């Protein structure tokens, strides 16, 4: 049973957002007996509501509130009002996500030290090490049932993986397998095994893929200590004269506003909404927004250096059949500046259905070059590039100077320029990807530009010193003791790996810390 808490109950921990960060943190706190309210802007949809249809699913669960973009990244030209492809629903982007679950490498927690100065990049070491994170990575992998950990076998390879593997072998890549996936390869945790449905991005109809929606939140609710309030969009965080957070104002589905009091507030709205909320909570005492004495709120926005390579072959592939992302090559994830860039990247299998392929293969293009590629859809294989992008101060979420949302609050603008290092990395990956497919007999390959961001990171970054970032090593804001950040916006740097395992590990760690501090009455 979920516990309904009173609006005036100021003993609760309030979490904003129910995705990878917020959903995990809320569940962990409830399991420790802490009264917790998760306010989630989106509706609660369950597995039966998911649809195997790309556009219909997008219309039902994507975050479609208006946003603007600027900067030289191509997304701004192709999708000016859709900088990010993320979810507005209970479960957040863990409904959409593909399940790839990788640990960061040791040196990726200390990039300023390892890479040295990189012009224009705002690199900083994490105030954390891999060693400190390892126990939490262990817990996160166990919780999420990540394949190739905890004696869980890998997923079987689908057709798209077979093409990748053959090419990887030809190129001499050694680290190619079906991934570390938070997708059941055998029944586990009361959920069945993957049915190779192939619509992982539209919500897993079999429940084999981990999502906070059904794999975490119900466990928290069962304790009677967790209430998830859907259709509750937080507009502002309130504070008292002493500069402590006191509660949050949110709008319900009819637009009525309520104040939920709180002992602790944790922000987990993903890396565009979280800084926007802090900026929109500016007050006389904090004129630049909450927790923003460093001026870093909203800055250092990272989205991974992405891109895709698709190859067309003489014979059918049917890449869309089966688990979307169960295939990885890790050889290029190493640190090796001899390639002309710092940081590394992964190749991961990827497929889109015909509707999304048309929208994303080469946005804006038309004519026979494009349509003949679509004609060969059944013979296509695909993989995604995910690599470390450079944090830059000017890549930032800012409040729009004139446009407001229906509640009268400025909408966010997302500014992003590719760094020269990002461009060099992407070009390298395009070349390697095309060579890989050519080695298996591709008749054509396509260097597909980045999609709207699925990985959004860094806009409330973690730092040792308060002047360099927004939160400390526990995700606690440097400025306000009972205000935490609990999502991917904490990331100091992005690493080459998909972020969610690290977001979940940080949330588990943060739950321990909050519980301890509450127990000591220091929070």
């Amino acid at each position: 049973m979920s516990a309904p808490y009173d609006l005036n109950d100021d003993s609760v921990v309030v979490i904003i957002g129910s995705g990878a960060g917020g959903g995990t943190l809320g569940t962990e706190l409830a399991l420790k007996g802490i009264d917790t309210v998760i306010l989630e802007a989106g509706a609660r949809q369950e597995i039966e509501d998911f649809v195997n249809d790309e556009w219909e699913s997008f219309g039902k669960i994507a975050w479609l509130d208006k946003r603007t973009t600027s900067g030289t990244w191509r997304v701004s030209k192709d999708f000016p009002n859709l900088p990010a492809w993320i979810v507005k629903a209970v479960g957040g982007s863990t409904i959409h996500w593909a399940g790839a679950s990788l640990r960061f490498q040791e040196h990726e927690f200390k990039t300023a030290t390892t890479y040295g100065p990189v012009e224009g990049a705002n690199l900083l070491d994490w105030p954390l090490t891999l060693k400190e994170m390892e126990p939490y990575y262990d817990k996160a992998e166990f919780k999420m049932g990540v394949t190739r950990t905890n004696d869980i076998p890998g997923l079987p390879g689908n057709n798209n993986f077979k093409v990748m593997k053959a090419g990887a072998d030809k190129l001499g890549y050694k680290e190619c397998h079906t991934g570390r996936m938070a997708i059941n390869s055998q029944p586990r945790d009361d959920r069945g095994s993957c049915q190779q449905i192939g619509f992982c991005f539209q919500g897993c109809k079999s429940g084999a893929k981990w999502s906070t929606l059904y794999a975490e939140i119900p466990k928290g609710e069962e304790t009677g200590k967790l209430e998830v309030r859907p259709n509750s969009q937080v507009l502002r965080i309130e504070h008292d004269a002493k500069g402590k957070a006191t509660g949050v104002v949110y709008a319900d589905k009819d637009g009525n506003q309520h104040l939920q009091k709180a002992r602790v507030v944790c922000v987990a709205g993903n890396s565009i909404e979280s800084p926007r909320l802090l900026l929109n909570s500016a007050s006389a005492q904090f004129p630049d927004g909450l927790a923003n004495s460093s001026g870093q709120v909203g800055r250092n926005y990272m989205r991974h250096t992405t891109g895709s390579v698709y190859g067309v072959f003489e014979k059918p592939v049917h890449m869309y059949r089966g688990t979307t992302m169960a295939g990885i090559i890790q050889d290029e994830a190493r640190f090796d500046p001899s390639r002309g860039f710092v940081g590394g990247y992964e190749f991961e299998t990827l497929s889109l259905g015909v509707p999304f392929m048309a929208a994303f293969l080469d946005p804006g293009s038309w004519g026979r070059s494009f349509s003949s590629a679509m004609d060969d859809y059944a013979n296509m294989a695909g993989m995604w590039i995910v690599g470390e992008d450079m944090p830059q101060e000017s890549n930032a979420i800012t409040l729009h100077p004139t446009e407001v949302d229906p509640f009268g609050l400025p909408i966010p603008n997302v500014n992003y320029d590719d760094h020269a290092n990002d461009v060099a990395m992407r070009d390298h990956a395009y070349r390697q990807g095309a060579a890989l497919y050519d080695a298996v007999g591709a008749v054509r390959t396509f260097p597909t530009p980045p999609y709207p961001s699925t990985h959004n990171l860094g806009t409330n970054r973690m730092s040792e010193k308060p002047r360099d970032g927004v939160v400390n090593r526990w995700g606690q804001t440097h400025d306000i003791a009972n205000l935490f950040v609990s999502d991917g916006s904490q990331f100091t740097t992005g690493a080459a790996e998909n972020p969610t395992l690290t977001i979940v590990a940080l949330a588990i760690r943060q739950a321990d810390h909050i519980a301890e501090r509450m127990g000591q009455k220091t929070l």
Partner: protein
Amino acid sequence: MTHSMGYTPLSRRGFLRGSAATAGLVAMTLAGGLLSAPNGAWAFAPKTLKPETARVLVQMARDTYPHDRFSDAIYAQAVAGYDDKAATDAAFQALLEDGVADLNSRAKDGFGAGSYDRVGWEENRLSILRAIAEGPFFQAVRSDLVVSIYNNHAVWEILGYEGSSADKGGYIDRGFNDLDWV
């Protein structure tokens, strides 16, 4: 509902209805159907757009996303969606009527043809489209077509995409790893 993917959209309902009712047009044999396949396989009677405008738009749709395996019915279906939208959106109607009038006058000036769709060679029609490609008319049509055409279930079938799979038990027993040529 406005879509936020950066194109000027028809209503979602509009294109989803179009995709769900793949056979809809085939059944649309209204008396006096002014647009029809020579063999009578389908016919489409625009209600708001001028019949000639609709005819030109069908050709323009094919030239923009040319698939020789697609029948005109698929392109006409997209145009039928425009006709629906034009009925309630006068600015959109004007954008289409004016845009097509411009195409026709370019067809006349450049190739002595009575209208855009009467220009014989695709390459010549493309030269007309390239000249207007950055303008609002072409952008509105193209950005909608890329959704409505490729969201059509008849198109999926031709391109070899099998669509919804959970209802069929996924691909675990239906060929997720049947590739044998590598």
